[in-house]
């Protein structure tokens, strides 16, 4: 993609042209303001004054059109900015999804700690040969294993 210096192939060039048109409109406006002051000093109600005002108003209309052309070009430049973007946007969203998956896996750490606690309690129960703590510990372990499984992503279909 060659950057033709005299062309309008890039958003930057389009924007630059729009800037130029806006600047012209600004210059025109400065002249119109001077003209307005001059008109104000003329004899009120005279035909000359009315004529000059009409002429100035036509210039003001031209100024407006310049500005509208500039804004149209700004809109073209803006559209070009987003057209180029497709990929980075998707990449960022994909990355965010991957990170969300990581976050989900991190909570596994917490669940594992619960599992370890269950195992310890089981060990304790066995050592003291008491049924109640053992049963409670087994239940804890069952619950923890379920929690771990629930937070895992679904398993892919088994391949033979």
């Amino acid at each position, binding site marked *: 993609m060659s950057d033709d210096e005299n062309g309008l192939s890039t958003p930057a060039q389009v*924007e630059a042209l*729009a*800037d130029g048109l*806006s600047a012209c*409109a*600004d210059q025109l*406006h400065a002249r*119109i*303001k001077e*003209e*307005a002051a001059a*008109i*104000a000093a003329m004899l*009120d*109600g005279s035909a000359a*004054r009315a004529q000059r*005002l009409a002429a*100035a*108003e036509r210039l*003001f*209309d031209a*100024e*407006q*059109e310049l*500005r*509208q052309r*500039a*804004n*149209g070009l*700004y*809109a073209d430049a*803006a*559209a070009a*900015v*987003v057209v180029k*973007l497709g990929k*980075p*946007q998707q990449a*960022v*969203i994909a*990355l*965010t999804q991957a*990170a*969300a998956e*990581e*976050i989900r896996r*991190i909570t596994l*750490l*917490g669940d*594992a*700690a619960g599992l*370890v*606690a269950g*195992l*310890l*309690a089981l*060990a*304790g129960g066995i*050592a*003291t040969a008491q049924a109640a703590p053992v049963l409670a510990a087994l239940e804890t372990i069952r619950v923890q294993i379920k929690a771990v499984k629930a937070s895992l992503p679904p398993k892919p279909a088994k391949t033979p």
Partner: protein
Amino acid sequence: MIVRMLLLLLCLQSSWLLGGCASGPSSQVSLNEVRAFADASASLGGYGELSRRYRDTYDREQPYLSPAADKLARASDAKRRVVYNDFVSVQKAVVLYMQTLSVLAGDARYDLGPRVDELGAGLRANAESGLTQRHITAYTGVTRLLTRMAASGYQNRNVETMVRDGDADVQTLLEAMIALTRLYAKTNENEKKTVLGLFDLELPAAPRNTDRMLLVLARVHLQNKTAEYKLLDRRYDLAMQGLTKVALGHQHLREHLNQLTRADVRLALANYVNDLRVIREGLVAP
């Protein structure tokens, strides 16, 4: 016997927990500044509001337009409306990224204290077997440290991964938002001069027999609109500054990925957070 089993379980647990750990330099791992930066970035205002304003330009300027200008304005209006959703999507992607980064860098979710306390409770059941309170306290302390290190190390590595993998694309998106904000501002300039410009000619040149009420209405209207646009100019500036700060802050993260706990790195990040907060307050205020 129980002590041996305990030591075995502790070893297993340590190797298991440390297995997923990056080589964290210190035991004091705080990603608070990263999280604060991500939060401030995600909640930065301005761009969304200015995008809407840009979209609705024609509605505001239409009353002031000559027929020829009106025709051109309507063509531009169609162009602006067509791409509006894309403008919004760009921001959404960046906000989503920052919100995710904030979660990764935050430690509230990974405070495994309650779970660690469970481990302590597990130990208490064994007290009758000869363990003293000292052992239990030590075990809980070690477990807590291990868990925090593993979690933070894991976090650290994930924050690093995300920043490393995402920086280029995030910067591209932020550049786009900055470019668009600049185009919004320039369009606003032309709108402002269209709206206010009419009065620069018609008020001074108005004939003496112009209705007095009309003149007063015109002057008051001009006054209000002038003040309105002045406030808006500031918003475009602030929005631009904010986006630039986010880009610089993320670049800083990218450049100091393995040094996120260093004091100077954290201080620089904290400064960005502060700047973003000031900008946000400026945008929230009318």
